[in-house]
């Protein structure tokens, strides 16, 4: 245990400040925006927390090539019915959804 607060722990503190301390004191648009900001911070926390899984999913799909190469190849029909590509796309979409939806 170090006396310094980690980056993720700081974001958690920001999230609680927004959702627990500020939002209940606000109404209307200000409350909506504060809760939206808290939601965005939670998303960033998940993204940092799951960075390893996100990178692994991207490596499995692209193996270091730019996404634009794969996008072009799929559009050109080079991966029609390709189960390997479909599995890797699904895995990446799952990893990204775990971040965006929680």
């Amino acid at each position, binding site marked *: 245990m170090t006396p310094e607060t980690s980056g993720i722990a700081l974001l958690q503190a920001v999230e609680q400040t927004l959702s627990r301390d500020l939002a209940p004191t606000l109404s209307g648009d200000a409350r909506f925006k504060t809760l939206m900001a808290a939601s965005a911070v939670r998303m960033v926390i998940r993204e940092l927390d799951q960075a390893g899984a996100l990178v692994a999913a991207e490596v499995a799909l692209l193996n270091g090539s730019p996404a634009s190469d794969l996008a072009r190849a*799929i559009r050109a029909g080079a991966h029609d019915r*390709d189960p390997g590509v*479909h599995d890797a796309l699904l895995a*990446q*979409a799952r990893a990204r959804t775990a971040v965006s939806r929680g």
Partner: protein
Amino acid sequence: MEAGAQARLGRWLAQTLGGAVTSVEVSRLSGGAIQENWMVELRLEGAPRVFVLRKDAAATIATSHGRADEFALIRAAHRSGVLVPEPIAFCSDCDVLGGPFALMAKVDGVGFGPKIVKDLTLGGDREALAERLGRELAKIHAIRPPCADLAFLGVPPSDPALADVAALRAALDAMGASRPALEWVLRWAERHPAKAEAVTLVHRDFRTGNYMVDATGLTAILDWEFAGWGDPMGDLGWFCASCWRFGRNDLEAGGIGSRDAFYRGYHVGGGVSVNPDAVRFWEVMAHVRWAVIALQQGERHASGREFSLEHALTGRIAAELELAALAMTAPAEWSNA
């Protein structure tokens, strides 16, 4: 609204409504960068009337053709018996309010999708609501090209499915977005396009969130700005797509009712015979189209053109839409040919 504008509006109203107009009161309902909505309360020959005035925001006059088109679409729908806010008049004279505007009857009700899905005190009996929405959709699809009043819609597409595939690819390219998952789904769509058995007027945004209800049932079909000629099955697919059920995945008709009830209403209303394969195709496409729209909104923030945390977060919805669309287009769903 400033006093001069309100006085000019009062004179225009008297002329347009053809009677003595008094006690004009104008209040802002909502407004953003693109569009303003005002409530206009007045007495016409002494009788109280309430209207909604829709106008493009001053900054976007270049796109004001949109309001005129929208008014023409609502008028065509109204003539076809669709439950829409009654279109009263359109003013293209920019001297009145600084830009064209449409005047429509004010309709009461709740339109917010998540609220309609959750709050069962709204909308009356839900199976009846789903059936009613099916009947309304059938009336929209009864409007067929050519139609002189809707000439601005252009030539009907000969192949609506492939036209949408091309349009969505172009939208991705215009954003510079490389989305292999969406490309996978679009390639599936290109290989398995729904064949349109008819081309009709289609609403193209017919979903929970774009109609209003009160405690007893439907009060109006809204948001006509995307309407055009297309495959009527596209509207059924958009309405039933899992991404527009607001958490009630069990209620396949827009999160508010059964697919059977919705289709029954559509059939009773004289709709085109329902092709389940085509509807499924359009449900897949609904996820891609909503993902592209979400990315476009996200891009408005990401590009620095418009600061909006809401748009930035909307862009992030694309991931879950890709996941759902990929699941619907697994290799087993592809034909061997």
